[in-house]
């Protein structure tokens, strides 16, 4: 069962994407538009695994605040924000975001906004295991630029 209007979770194991989205959709039957984003570990060159660490007192509360802000800013009927922690293999889901709104533009922008913030402004640290060992990942410049978009005056 999903919590409404906001369902925010840290997950230590894999998620069932189809079931989650079907449940989110059913929970927001009145919304005209539902957008989802699923981020997966890319089988990229020699990346064998990915690990996400978090900091208990900050990570989930930060995600909850992010979801609540997005709900207000984009006039959402609801949002789902799920993020994996621990070790994942290529092809596995890292993050699932879904947004429901009356109009499609709000749903699109809210999902985009949530992802930009989860990527560069939520309390996670990511490292990849390659053939030569573990490497910590920092946000790319593109990720920081994506995040900065939301601080400009809205057009």
């Amino acid at each position, binding site marked *: 069962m999903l919590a409404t209007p906001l369902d925010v979770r840290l997950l230590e194991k894999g998620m069932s994407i189809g079931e989650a989205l079907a449940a989110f959709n059913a929970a927001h039957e009145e919304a005209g538009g539902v957008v989802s984003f699923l981020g997966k570990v890319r089988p990229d060159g020699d990346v064998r695994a990915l690990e996400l660490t978090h*900091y208990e007192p900050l990570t989930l509360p930060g995600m909850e605040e992010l979801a609540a802000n997005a709900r207000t800013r984009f006039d959402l009927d609801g949002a789902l924000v799920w993020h994996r922690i621990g070790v994942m293999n290529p092809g596995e889901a890292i993050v699932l975001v879904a947004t429901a709104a009356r109009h499609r533009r709000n749903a699109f922008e809210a999902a985009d906004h949530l992802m930009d913030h989860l990527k*560069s*402004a939520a309390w996670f*640290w990511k490292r990849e295991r390659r053939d030569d060992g573990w490497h910590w990942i920092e946000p790319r410049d593109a990720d920081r630029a994506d995040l900065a978009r939301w601080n400009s005056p809205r057009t």
Partner: protein
Amino acid sequence: MSVTLLFLGPLRDLAGEQEREVASPLDWAGLIEQVGPKIAAQLEDDRVNIACKGKVLADKRALIAEDGDEVALLPPVSGG
């Protein structure tokens, strides 16, 4: 009479450990002294934050941790 220092993300590798008990009370100067030059240099970076008792400090240099407090050193994040 101690404070728990937590090293998150890449700082854990630099510290060579995940956490350490240090004497309380602990302020910014004491912290810099405790962690050694490599981590001290990281802490000077504006993108590195400090949380005390589960709250991120607006001004990390104003740190004052007392007995039983947890102080987390938070390097730049990367999620999603």
